[in-house]
């Protein structure tokens, strides 16, 4: 069953078409990677799925429910994180998580229980009382991930979350995504780091100049392009598309 069904999604910014008639499904229990060069339309697509941007045309359905008509219910089950997000600098990590729990409609007890789980999972104990402005970049990323999944959503949308992170933290995040996949969550993420695609993804969606050019998995991508590795396969695919 599809967690998200996207049909003929289109987004125009004045004269610039950022996303041009994209359609795909995101299933539960799989990790879908969104690949493409800079300005391809990956972030725009993900922002529309997350409800941050309004599509110019097209539909997005979550479990058969239209986003516009059920956006509060859908957002209650959606976890969204981008590389350029930040938390409130004057709040501690704990206060932010509590605030987000309240916004999700949780009772305080449920919020605190969930925070305890996240503390164990992402080693937040040392930074819980610190303000966001006092954290290192790795600590910030862990806080942001915790903030995005405070409500244990079934659908995760991550946009280049491992950008500028070291290998260890990136690995932790990737392992986390794998665990969530094992729990049956639907995950879509975008990245420039091809090794992550290789490590994580079950499906690859390649977007170039706003269009969906390929829908495959990484083994098929390597095999069909006669490449040695995914990097080579990706460059070949881009070249092919440019031609």
């Amino acid at each position, binding site marked *: 069953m599809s967690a998200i069904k996207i049909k003929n999604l289109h987004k125009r910014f004045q004269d610039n078409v950022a996303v041009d008639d994209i359609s795909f499904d995101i299933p539960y229990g799989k990790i879908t990677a969104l690949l493409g060069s800079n300005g391809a339309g990956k972030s725009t697509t993900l922002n529309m799925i997350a*409800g*941050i941007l309004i599509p110019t045309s097209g539909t997005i359905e979550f479990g058969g429910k239209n986003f516009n008509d059920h956006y509060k219910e859908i957002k*209650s089950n*959606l976890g*969204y994180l981008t590389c350029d997000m*930040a938390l409130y600098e004057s*709040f501690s990590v704990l206060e*932010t998580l509590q605030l987000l729990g309240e*916004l999700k409609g949780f009772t*305080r007890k449920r919020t605190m229980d969930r925070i305890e789980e996240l503390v164990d999972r992402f080693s937040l104990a040392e930074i819980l009382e610190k303000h966001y402005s006092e954290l290192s970049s790795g600590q910030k990323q862990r806080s942001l991930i915790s903030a995005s999944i405070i409500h244990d959503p079934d659908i995760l949308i991550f946009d280049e979350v491992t950008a500028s992170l070291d290998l260890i933290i990136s690995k932790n995040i990737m392992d986390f995504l794998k665990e969530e996949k094992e729990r049956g969550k639907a995950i879509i993420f975008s990245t420039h780091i091809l090794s992550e695609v290789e490590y994580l993804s079950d499906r690859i969606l390649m977007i170039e100049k706003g269009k969906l050019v390929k829908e495959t998995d990484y083994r098929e991508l390597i095999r069909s392009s006669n490449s040695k590795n995914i990097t080579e396969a990706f460059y070949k695919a881009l070249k092919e598309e440019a031609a």
Partner: protein
Amino acid sequence: MISIRNIKVVFKKEFLQIMRDKSALFTNFFVPLFGLPLYLILILEATSYESAQKDAPIKDDSVFKISYQGDVDQELIEHLSLNKKIELTKVESSATEKEIIDYRNKLKRMLSLEAKINSFKDNIKQEKAVLKENHEDYAKAQADFSETLKLLKDKFSSKADLHMAIFTNEDGIRVTYFFHSEESKVSSAALRLTKKEIKKHEKEMVKTFKETLKIQQKDLEPFYFREVNIDKSPSVFLKIIGGGIGGGILFLLLIATFNPTINTTIGERDQNTFKVLLMNPLSLHEIFIGKYLNVALQGMMTLIPYSIQFLILYAWGNSFFLFDQIPPVSGLKLLTLILTTVSSAMLISSMCFLACSFAKTRVQAQSLITLLMFSIAIPLGTVGVMGVKLSKVTALIPLINTPLATENLMQLTPDYLSIAIGMITNLGASLILIWFSLGAFLVQWKGKSDSKGLSDLLDSKRRKSKFLTPAHAFLAFALAFLGYTYGSLVLSTLKIELLLYLFSPILFCLGTAIFITNYSGLDLSKIIKWKGISRIYAFKLTIAAFSLSLMFNLLLKNSIVLELFKVDFPPIFESNQFVSILGYFLLFAVIPGFVEEILFRGIIFNGFRKQYSFLISTIVSSLLFGIIHFSMFKFGHTFVIGLFLAFVYEKRGLFSCIAFHTLFNSFGLIFGLNDFSSKLIASATPIHCWIIIPSALVLSSFLIVSKKNDPNEIEDRSYKEVA
């Protein structure tokens, strides 16, 4: 569908962000601190102008000119000549007595007809014909009169304010006719005269002449003055207040609030935190409304204190306003007093609600709400303390401690029975609330579902802990409160002996501090750290204490000490003034500085700081610091000083707090004991406040804004060390 709950959460987030943002705090609180003196200046200038207009006397240099003719009594002339306000001129006039009598008669007729016309105006329809007829007669009479007036005017001196025509009748009695022309110089002056002034002049003149001339009343004609219209337009003050505040609120809610709301939204977007909100099940409307409400609240929070202050200033008939405009019986005064009490409670309550928003658990919120109730009980209980002397409540707001309010205050002698009843009520309510609050904290501290409250705490075998807790803080406060309440009772009831009796509550408070510190296992020497003091730092301390003390004295318009005594300082030791002065410094500067800082920063602030944020600890310790001075009518500025001292403690340690507090009180004493400075302060104008207040704030901030590696920066906080 818009969810109120979501709006509430967004509002709460916005409120917390604003309260933690230094620039927003500066705009919301420090700018009004500058704005209030400016506002005061504008108001005072406007009302001074208005009162100057109303009270404008006839020129002091003007003399009352009298011309006279006829067979004058030299003795009268000599008597009048002695009065420097009277200028006499003899004129040669050929106006005869007949002409004057004729004038009088015509004047009488005209006046009576005028009166008749006025009385006919009520029944204008029925009396129209009669009115018309009388108008015709009046016109004729007016014309006759004008003719006669012109005749006489030509014969009188046109420069005279008053003309006297004296004739001796057949019986040898002088008959004097007084009148003046309506076109004489004094008429234009008379137009500026109020009715009161007219009557006053008339009475004085009649009195003078009666005494001198021994003439019977019936022979004196009243002066003919035109009706004087006093300007009845609404006072400038009311216009400014009504238009200013009403318009201000409307402007604030409808116009000025949208722009900051939009700016905060744009700010969030630029800081990349807006997506954090958007990823939640919130609509844009809910986000915007939550932000809007917070901005509106920030604006109201600065507007409300202003409004209350000015309402109270106006109603109390501050010396800048005309007191006789206020009705003697006071629906208004009572309303003002209620407003004063309620506003004090509101200000304290709002601080407590703010503190409640930081509560992490239900128990904490319960405890803080208990503190809130405690804070309301104190102001209301203070009314009971003073019995029916409600006017003493006005001193709750420092800025209205005007000379007039203080005068009223000191004229009211305390009623011992009402004080006793009020004190019992006050203390009883406070103890009950302390019990509950201690109980709530003990539940949290011990993790038990119930507790015996104070009895648990006092069980020394089980309660010996290694660090201070809020429970210790409350216990210290409760005991100190007893000591201070006793001290204030002593102050308000006894005279010469009081200063000696004051030693006992001071010793009681000191004992409390020692008891609590021992009980908690805290080593007092560890929290009073001395790292040596540089000359620059000593200078900073002195300047900060001096400027803040001057600022508060200016705001209170009198020395802090003079508030207590108002009359001459009773000497401690009559035989030796130097020892008396030393005694004052000891009692009101050195000892309070030492004892209060140990109690409020050393114990109470520390008691909260381990478990709560700096903000909560600051507010609670300052509230309690202010409350302890409540019965001495000093809550307002004491609370503010408490906030400042909390910052000093956090930055510099307890020694600095003790030093600052001692210096601050010392300067207050100097301003009060010294005739010169106390008069200087009493004569300060708003312009002085406008300069001194911001300067004091800036100078004192140097104490809490320290450079890195400042040798006086205390590196470790005592609450951490104690733990």
